[in-house]
């Protein structure tokens, strides 16, 4: 009789599985607009619903509230405020991060939504809900039309 419990399932006879799933995720009409404007001109666009007035950031081509088609793009600038934040000390493989990452949900002035991103140029103990921040973009040549064209948001 064993006196020790098996804690690692890999010690049992097993078949190692690997699920390969390579994708491309096409951005669609609203995503193309958002990411190409961000890449080419450092501008952030939202979409406004003509019926209810709700302004979607990130933009979409439909309103989730009244199911209206959205056709009006609004430049919402690059500034917002920290609606909530967290400091991550642990990586996706559960190992400890060398440097903690500050994530925030940034609500934009002039839009009902915002962006989830990282904060930079700030110590985590100095971050506060309500703190005004602005997007810091990568240099034009390094932008690739994805969300990481914004390096992070920094306090204004």
């Amino acid at each position, binding site marked *: 009789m064993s006196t020790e419990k*098996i*804690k*690692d*399932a890999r*010690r*049992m006879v097993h078949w190692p*599985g690997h*699920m390969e799933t390579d*994708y491309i*995720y096409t*951005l669609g009409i609203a*995503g193309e607009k958002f990411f190409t404007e961000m890449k080419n001109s450092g501008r952030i666009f939202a979409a406004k619903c003509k019926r209810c007035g709700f302004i*979607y*950031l*990130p933009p*979409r081509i439909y309103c*989730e509230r009244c199911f209206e088609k959205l056709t009006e793009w609004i430049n919402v600038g690059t500034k917002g405020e920290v*609606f*909530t*934040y*967290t*400091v*991550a*000390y*642990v*990586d*996706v*493989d*559960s190992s*400890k991060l060398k440097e903690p*990452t500050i*994530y*925030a*949900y940034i609500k934009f002035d002039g839009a*009902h*939504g*915002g*962006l*989830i*991103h*990282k904060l930079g140029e700030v110590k*985590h103990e100095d971050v506060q*809900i309500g703190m005004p921040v602005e997007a810091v973009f990568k240099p034009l040549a390094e932008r690739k039309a*994805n*969300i*990481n064209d914004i390096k992070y948001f920094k306090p204004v």
Partner: protein
Amino acid sequence: MTDVAIVGVGCTGFKSVSPEVSYKELMFEAATRAYQDAGNINPRKDIDAFISVAEDYWEGFSIFDEFVPDQLGAVLRQLFTVSGDSIIGLGNAHMLIKTGHFDVVAVESHGKPSDILTLYDIVSFAMDPVFNRPLGGHPFYLAGLEMNRFLFETGNTKEDCAMVAVKNRDNALRNPYAAYGARIDLNDVFCSSPHFYPLNKFDISQPADGGIVIVLASDEVASDLNDCPIWIRGVGWASETPSLESRCFGEAVYAQLSAEMAYKEAKITSPSREIDFAEVDDLFSYKELQHMEAMRLCEVGEAGRLIAEGVTGIDGDLPINTSGGNLGMGWALEASGMQRLLEVVIQLRGDAGERQLADVEVGLAQSWRGIPTATGGTAVLSNC
């Protein structure tokens, strides 16, 4: 209209690992126990339909529903899979019986996260691939974002949340099905490593393997199958927007909407007075408080005071998570919500042993689909 009762429950118990059984054997054990509990029915002829609650990626299959029938006794029978949450599975079974076409329906859910070598990568794959996933990191940072806003808006504190972890781990010591029973104190929670501020390690449920099957029956046959049928008085479910950037973060809107749907069916107008006890999702400690407030079990901003005063303790006026919750029983993927339902049935039957509550007639079970979702279910049950 037909009333629906739970007439059988079967549970394997939950453990941090289960290397001795395959996922199919885990489900077979839970099903065998449930069918025995439901008057020893034979699933090959006595069960009219089967529902499994599962998610392909958790299971490592592209078509997991195809791999469900044999271990449940459902080959050549009516079966479908609900990808979502156990209480949504319960809602589907409830509706099947209410159509009048089915008398007995089984619902299965399980989790075997110890088979998943990259658990949190799979959670990451549930996030928006374009706006969120490229930021990288452990996806539970979303819970940190939500907890911070919830505390900010409601005035509940990190200490209140830590009390949830202490209470539920302690309750789990009295539950033989629970994987993570422990006697810890507030200091242990505060000294556990910071993971996603304001969440510490002990504020976060740990993965556990296990399975639960329940058997439901119409009022025409329920009493023949079990001496103590537990009646489903109302079921609800709801999804908030999938877009993280459109959510309100501080409130659990899905819990509010799913509870109101269940209350309407159960004709409950004042839940804090009419419900005797509740099992509430607590995958993260703050979730117990947030869900209580969303479901009107207390006022907004009041949940922290209730736990501090012992109201939600096992001897309090409104016991919450006598089972130990997810913090005490373990995060069992799709079976997490079914754990909540199982405890409500056990308590209403009077079978909860040393954690049994006195004189309980109406209980509530609530589930959340977990990070990064905003989907959940609520069920109101009674023993009379």
